[in-house]
């Protein structure tokens, strides 16, 4: 098992803020919009240096999406930012009509996704956003795994023509990817090559998958771990190549098991190469208040849950 170490823990939303800071200096067409959550989205550095390219929208997410769509008419690259719940479910029709169907170059940047938002509870913990966004034709859906990858993804999507949903979160987690990485949309990242089971993980679950890989190794199981940071377009080739070798799969995501990464992978497997697949995901339920660690434990989204899923997948393969 390849060794991953870290010297610090950071939140992925700060990676987004750092990416925006860079974009503010590099790309004069980038405009940031926010619906009264500037501190939560870590936009202070961008705003300080580019006050004319920041648009405070107030608590009016629907209008923010529409204004963003309009800004693209005139060549701007709007980054519309708020919590994931308000960036997707609350404004689904605005995204559908004014952004996706109209093929507008809007970047919807969503923080505080999933259970790890924590104490605010289920009203704010969206677990359906990946599903909603990936169903929109033409939408690119990205869920990076740590601070550095989120920063790199933020910078990369400015150069991608077309609507993008970028999902990140609130908790501080290990920073284990390279600081100077180049983010390639739609290209899965091989975290660890293995032979016994393929673990496809996204977002905060990638670090959990690495820890699971180490536990499995201690038990003599050689896990392949792949970071699917881009849910759409999905790197089908990487998935099929991996399961051709391992013969079984685990998907891990901080999302409802319905409609997320797991279902996207399942579709590829059903169509091309049927192998056993186990889901590590929220089992069609809402979240609740608690610390991020407590919630991930209660809803079955930890390294130990990935280990158990990997063993089930291997057992089914060998049955």
């Amino acid at each position, binding site marked *: 098992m390849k060794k991953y170490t870290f010297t610090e823990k950071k939140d992925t939303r700060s990676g987004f803020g750092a990416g925006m800071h860079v974009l503010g200096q590099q790309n004069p067409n980038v405009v940031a919009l926010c619906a009264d959550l500037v501190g939560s989205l870590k936009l202070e550095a961008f705003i300080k240096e580019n006050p004319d390219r920041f648009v405070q929208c107030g608590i009016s997410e629907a209008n923010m999406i529409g204004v963003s769509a309009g800004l693209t008419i*005139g060549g*701007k690259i709007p980054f519309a930012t708020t919590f994931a719940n308000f960036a997707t479910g609350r404004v689904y029709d605005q995204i559908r009509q004014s952004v996706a169907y109209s093929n507008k170059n809007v970047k919807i940047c969503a923080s505080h996704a999933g259970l790890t938002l924590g104490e605010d509870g289920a009203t704010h913990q969206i677990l359906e956003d990946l599903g909603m966004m990936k169903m929109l034709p033409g939408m690119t859906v990205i869920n990076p795994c740590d601070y550095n990858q989120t920063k790199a993804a933020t910078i990369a999507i400015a150069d991608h023509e077309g609507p993008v949903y970028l999902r990140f979160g609130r908790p501080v987690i290990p920073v284990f990817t390279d600081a100077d990485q180049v983010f390639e949309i739609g290209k899965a990242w091989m975290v660890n090559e293995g032979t016994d089971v393929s673990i496809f993980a996204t977002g905060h679950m990638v670090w959990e998958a690495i820890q699971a890989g180490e536990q499995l190794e201690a038990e003599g199981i050689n896990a392949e771990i792949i970071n699917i940071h881009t849910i759409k377009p999905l790197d089908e080739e990487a998935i099929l190549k991996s399961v051709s070798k391992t013969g079984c799969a685990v998907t891990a995501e901080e999302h409802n098991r319905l409609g997320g990464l797991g279902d996207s992978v399942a579709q590829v497997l059903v169509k091309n190469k049927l192998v056993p697949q186990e889901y590590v995901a929220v089992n069609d339920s809402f979240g609740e208040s608690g610390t991020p660690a407590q919630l991930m434990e209660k809803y079955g989204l930890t390294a130990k849950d990935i280990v158990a899923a990997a063993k089930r997948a291997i057992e089914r393969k060998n049955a």
Partner: protein
Amino acid sequence: MEIEQLEKVASQVRRDIVRMVHGCQSGHPGGSLGCTEILVALYFEQMKIKEENGKPVFDMNGEGEDLFFLSNGHISPVWYSVLAHKGYFPKEEMATFRKLNSRLQGHPTTHEHLEGIRIASGSLGQGMSAAIGAALAKKLNKDTRTVFVLMGDGEQQEGQVWEAASFAPHHEVDNLIAMIDLNGQQIDGPTLKVMNNRDLGKKYEAFGWEVITIEEGNDMAAVVKGLYEAKSRLGHGRPIMILVHTGMGFGVDFMMGSHKWHGVAPNDEQLAAALGQLEETLGDY
């Protein structure tokens, strides 16, 4: 363009509207007929549009030209006809309205790359937000042209409209002229009965808009004058709202003033009766 010439264009546009809706037995003639003066006055008199050899040159960004957004997208027939006669696309294409494989979708879209359209509309309440964004982009680009947007009065019941209504004065979007088609009708009946909008002028004034009214929205001279009046007030820190009183179905006597023709197509006899009231001036498609 002289008022008399604009009226001739309007007559042809009205013929196109009833023929398009009849041709596919689907669509919204009432609001389209009522807004004919507004769109003709905008495109043939008011708006500066990039042209080459007398024809519009369409590009999505629209830098250096005035932009129009139709928020109440269901009145697409009037927009399609005006765009076609302006020269954005061949007028024969109007025959494909609402039919399979057409660029003239039921509601306007950019998906089929129809020249003149910059965003999909029809899911009500979204157009003004987009127009505000386009107006902000013009300011960032130091482009001094104007952005226009038309909404329906029933559409004022959508919450997003009021998010946008708060936003534009706060951000001093003073290169924007919004218009509301006050025809007093919506699908389920008179707006007063379905959901009373109360005094829209006072509402927008309270939100920080400069509000003017065109009492006779189907009088071409009044519409042209009102648009110039609105334009003269731009650039002073406030967006402009024009309340335009129109008659749903105006120009076809049996369609006038009733919500019943909001979304109903005429049959053959009704088409003949309607065309009998509308002079063919620029040639039917």
